[in-house]
């Protein structure tokens, strides 16, 4: 394995956009902020820029660490010097999605028109809106086109949207553990998560910030449910089995099995320590439900991808049942219909949907090989 190093201390930046964004919902957002981070250096030809798109609960802090903190970005294992997305070669950009709660304008921000917190009145954003706002960030950074746009899960959906909406601005598209649209089961899980939040008495019809509270219980429940769909039965079996916290059954409704304890911890952490905004969670799940690029093309994904000129790498994980390999096959098939340049890897992993964030030699190997190919491509173009 090549030597790897850490990015080290990173600092987020904020872009204020005063050009109104006309959103898919029909609402116009008069102005907005995008919080973002960058790693590595943009080369003189501006050919080495990579955009990372984040998933449901992710944000712009992909790699490195903040001053005075030990926690690292959510994809730190894959981004850094000598890592698959090698910051010695690439200039990496990631922004917090519009409607998020980590610095970009979202439901917890102040509506400049009313002077009050948006709360539930923040317009529901879609993948298309995110991609268009990311394109504004691209212009601000004076990047002519992305060498690659990369994302896992909901991030992968944004990658597909990029390839469809801005074919000339993206050379490579890497779509990991994703799907071309949600299944009825996926939407059903999202709906249960939303009901958990919206029926929490502290939700106050979304005006919880003004009420000086947060629907922690609902948010924690939503996260517990979501988390379940990220894990595989195999992995839960090997990690927890039927292990008991106190070594014996107590015949009550307290936490008895380790798996219960783990899920409660995950829910708690999300709702309290991470302080995730409940309205953002609702918005993100809606954006997921709405994502269906084929809908504008007679429900034909092949037609939707017909104009895409990017080269694709699609990756799925064997035990991912949220977005199973079959969902990636749909994307692969649509790209093959268009004679696109595409490679597909189906990675053996026991970690379910979460596998895209975790170490795995096959995943890393194919990811690294593909990134090297991108790097070699633009080195060759430059005649190096």
């Amino acid at each position, binding site marked *: 394995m090549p030597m790897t190093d850490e990015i080290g201390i990173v600092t987020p930046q904020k872009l204020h956009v005063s050009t109104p964004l006309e959103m898919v919902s029909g609402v116009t957002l008069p102005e907005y902020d995008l919080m973002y981070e960058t790693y590595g250096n943009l080369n003189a030809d501006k050919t080495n820029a990579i955009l990372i798109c984040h998933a449901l609960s992710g944000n712009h802090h992909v790699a490195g660490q903040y001053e005075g903190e030990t926690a690292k970005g959510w994809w730190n294992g894959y981004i850094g010097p000598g890592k698959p997305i090698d910051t010695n070669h690439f200039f990496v950009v990631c922004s917090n999605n519009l409607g998020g709660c980590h610095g970009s304008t979202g439901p917890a921000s102040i509506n400049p028109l009313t002077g009050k917190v948006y709360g539930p009145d923040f317009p529901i954003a879609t993948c298309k809106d995110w991609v268009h706002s990311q394109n504004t960030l691209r212009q601000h950074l004076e990047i002519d086109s992305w060498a690659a746009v990369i994302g896992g899960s909901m991030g992968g959906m944004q990658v597909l949207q990029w390839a469809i909406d801005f074919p000339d601005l993206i050379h490579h598209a890497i779509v990991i553990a994703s799907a071309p649209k949600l299944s009825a089961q996926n939407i059903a899980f999202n709906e249960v998560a939303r009901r958990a939040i919206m029926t929490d008495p502290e939700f106050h019809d979304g005006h919880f910030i003004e009420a000086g509270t947060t629907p922690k219980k609902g948010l924690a429940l939503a996260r517990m449910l979501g988390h379940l769909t990220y894990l595989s039965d195999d992995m839960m079996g090997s990690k927890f089995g039927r292990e008991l916290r106190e070594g014996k059954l107590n015949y009550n409704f307290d936490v008895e099995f380790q798996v219960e304890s783990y899920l409660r911890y995950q829910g708690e952490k999300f709702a309290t320590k991470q302080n995730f905004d409940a309205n953002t969670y609702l918005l993100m799940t809606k954006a997921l439900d709405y994502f269906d690029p084929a809908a504008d093309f007679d429900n034909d994904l092949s037609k939707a991808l017909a104009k895409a000129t990017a080269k694709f*790498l699609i990756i799925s994980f064997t035990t991912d049942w949220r977005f199973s390999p079959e969902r990636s*096959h749909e994307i*692969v*098939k649509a790209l*093959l*219909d268009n*004679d696109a*340049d*595409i*490679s*597909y*890897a*189906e*990675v*053996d992993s026991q970690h379910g949907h979460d596998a895209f964030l975790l170490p795995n030699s*096959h995943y890393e*190997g*194919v990811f690294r*090989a*593909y990134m*090297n*190919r991108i790097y*070699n*491509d633009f080195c060759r173009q430059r005649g190096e």
Partner: protein
Amino acid sequence: MTSTPLSPEFKLIAEWIHSKSRVLDLGCGDGQLLDYLIQNRSITGYGMEIDPQKNIKAVQRGINVIQSNLNSHDICDYFDEDSFDFVIMTQALQVVSRPDLLLDEMLAVGKQSIITFPNFGHWRNRAQLFFGGRMPQNKSLPNPWYNTPNIHLCTFNDFEDLCEEKNIEVVARTVVNSRHEPTFAMRFAPNWLGEIALYRVQRKS
């Protein structure tokens, strides 16, 4: 990435591939053949390979490789009829669960198929079985019977019978020894003397 010299078998196959054709390589390994054909025949196309390590190497070469199990009947799911000028499968016919069905799939998505496999009817195999009374084990069949990927070994005659039965036309056949050289004697008794055969087949019109 093309530092390793092209194998003699691949050289023989490459002679059959005309310029700018569309090619599907089943069990493409590290993509060496496709890489050669892209650079020397300006072909386009895809490889399919199940082995992760080989996939990684193929991706590194810049080959379009789809990780897939040839037994899972993905080929017809992924590709439309007559998508390719050539569907190539080298040294894999004998390892798949249903070679006959795979042959159908290959000739559904491709106009012609190029198939290579070891000849179980080679005299050395026959001699080992006849005199030794045991399953042959040698350079081209190195594995013991109980642990071998070669679950559907056949002779050239067997393969040609299958083609006949399936209304498949043998357009060309090259029979070679294990060094991929054709010898004079092989012409007269290929099923005795040939170690490897390269077949180019198509559906009978």
